[in-house]
């Protein structure tokens, strides 16, 4: 662990710097055509970033104590999301239908990497899940983090949808529109990513409930009205609407784009609530080590509160 931590932080720092450069280039490309040389450098930087992220994941998985641990801390979750996002960006580079989406995904990748550095260097806290079966734990945490990654992708497509639509409506700087994905492709991306995100988050939620039901802990009274539960439920509902937007025609287009962004904001707020709020004292009837905040009926609550017992790790 002591070896893995600084190496991971170093890799994350390099990745963040790379990501910042690529992000600046991608944002510039929104308005100005890119030269062939710059495009080639950008492509290589993305490949290098993906390779480094993979290396970081392997280092985490192999050097961490206790052998193979898919997601052992919030940092691993962020690293997993970054890896997925970088892969998606690389995929999008070669998809003419989604051209330009990387300009909206790269800032998010940079943000995630920066957040992972913080989680690695200053607030590293591995998940303490001794009572969970490794399969349930893997499915639960992977579902939650991958679900969040897909919801993030939906939000990025939503952001780009709003950008493209505003330019089309205001008829401003239309010369560069050929370098951006079409509204229809973006709406499809929003719906597909939101559907995948919804399914994975629901999987995380269900496995979380299964885990709780198998454990001996009990939820405190009024657990369903805590901020994290309310926020997580709202996020879940938003994605439930978003995946059915084709049938709810009133939510098509701009509204769907805003919903995707609101959904991600709610998810991030849930993360923030879960990771920021101090754990409540355990109920009198709970076993030693359990906290009142570890309830989790919904996806994020299940993720980080009801199951996870965090231990400060230096």
């Amino acid at each position: 662990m002591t070896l893995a931590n600084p190496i991971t932080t170093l890799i994350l720092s390099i990745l963040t710097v790379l990501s910042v450069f690529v992000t600046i280039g991608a944002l510039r490309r929104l308005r100005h055509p890119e030269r062939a040389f710059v495009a080639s450098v950008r492509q290589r930087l993305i490949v290098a970033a993906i390779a480094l992220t993979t290396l970081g994941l392997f280092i985490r998985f192999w050097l961490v104590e206790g052998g193979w641990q898919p997601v052992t801390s919030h940092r691993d979750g962020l690293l997993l999301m970054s890896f997925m996002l970088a892969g998606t960006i690389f995929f999008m580079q070669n998809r003419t239908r989604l051209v330009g989406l990387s300009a909206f995904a790269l800032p998010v990748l940079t943000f995630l990497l920066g957040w992972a550095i913080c989680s690695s260097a200053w607030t590293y806290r591995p998940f303490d899940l001794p009572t969970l079966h490794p399969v349930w734990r893997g499915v639960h945490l992977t579902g939650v983090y991958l679900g969040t990654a897909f919801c993030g992708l939906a939000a990025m497509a939503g952001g780009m949808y709003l950008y493209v639509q505003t330019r089309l409506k205001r008829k401003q700087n239309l010369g560069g529109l050929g370098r951006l994905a079409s509204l229809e492709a973006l709406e499809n991306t929003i719906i597909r990513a939101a559907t995948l995100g919804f399914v994975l988050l629901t999987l995380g939620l269900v496995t979380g409930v299964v885990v709780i039901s198998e454990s001996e802990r009990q939820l405190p009274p009024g657990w369903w009205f805590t901020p994290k539960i309310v926020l997580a439920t709202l996020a879940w509902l938003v994605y439930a609407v978003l995946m059915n937007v084709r049938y709810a025609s009133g939510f098509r287009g701009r509204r769907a784009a805003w919903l995707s962004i609101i959904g991600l904001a709610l998810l991030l707020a849930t993360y923030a609530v879960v990771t920021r709020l101090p754990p409540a004292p355990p109920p009198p009837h709970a076993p030693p080590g359990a906290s009142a905040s570890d309830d989790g009926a919904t996806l994020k609550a299940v993720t980080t509160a009801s199951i996870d017992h965090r231990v400060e790790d230096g």
Partner: protein
Amino acid sequence: MRVLFIGINHRTAAVRLRECFAAAGDAPPHLNAFRERFPGSECVIVSTCNRFELYVARPLHGQPNADDLRTFLSERFGVPMDQVASASIHREQDQAVAHLFRVCCGLDSMVLGEPQVLGQVKRAYQTAADCGSAGPVLHRVFQHAMATAKQARTETGIDAGRVSVGSVAADLARQVFADFADKTVLGIGAGEIAKLTLRHIMELAPHRLWLTNRTHQNASALAEAIHLSADVGGARPWEQLDELLVEADIVVTCTASPEPILTPARFKPILKRRRYRPLFVIDLAMPRDASPQLGSMTNLYLYNIDDLQAVVANSLGQRGDQAQDCERHVAAAVTACMSQITHADLGQLIRQLRAKLHDIGQDERERTLKKLGQSPDPEALDSALDEHTHRLINKILHMPLSQLNQHDGGTPLGFYAAALRRLFDLGEEIKPDTEPAEASEPGPDA
């Protein structure tokens, strides 16, 4: 004759003002009104979606002048005089001719080098010729302009590889839709620009392409002209327009309707029936077919001719070299054309002068012959010839010399004097006799 031009175009006036002129219908009634008001003048009206221009040739000191033309436009088209004055541009002589040449070459178009404008100018000239409002001067100017435009386009390649309104419309459609295999295109109207744009849209391979027009035969003719196969689409009755709008994803409209046919009131229920599917409307008509308020409706993207041409204009920065070559062609052609006009004026003047002098000579000849009688006496013949010559010279010089004596102060007298001296090769001006010998000799006291 003097050539004048007055007009409004996309640079000087917004669509709303241009619509007032375009909505006034065909040119012949306006040409006839012009001829009634300014007899003796020539006129051609060029009216396109981007411009409304009057090319006029009038006698040198006749009517109309620029203010008369502005007044004519204001009264004839019901546009306030201050709007006409602020939005119109006015050129005379070689500048007016140069403007027409630039228009024909596509140098004044929003889409640099666009070829459609040449056909539109040709039709405008033909209309004026049919109405009899284009005279010898404008015949010469317009024929020269069209020949120059063809030559300049061929030699400079200014219209080669151009970005057209149709291609931009197709690009914008690609920005809204990703896949056209399930999309329906609706063409409203059967104009030339609609045909060109629909050809570009057809390259996107849409699922269906319907055409509709108030005159069903025109829609059918357009379907044939763009080689629309029956399994892809065809002409549909005008009465089904609302149904077609529900079905369509892309609408290309270009009718001659003076009022908008696509209004918010019409579209509100249609959008609901469409379940708010995105709709891309390309309005190429002038006056506009789609009310501007449509652009603010949910999932509806409205582009009119100005919007599309602005996009095109932005993408043409790299074609400056061809434009410069074309400008050089225009400058040379304008000089040649103006020279021809001037020479034509001069030729007519010479013919008139010769005819007048010939008449004078004929009158005097008859008079002298009559005076001599049947058997002229040699002495009387000598005297009659002297008188004949004297009368002939007096009659010829009477008019110019009396005009010179009745000089009204408009043109400097010296100008006429110099002209006479040059025309009759009278040599250098002779100073009046001032007794130089006496004046120059020094006095005895000097």
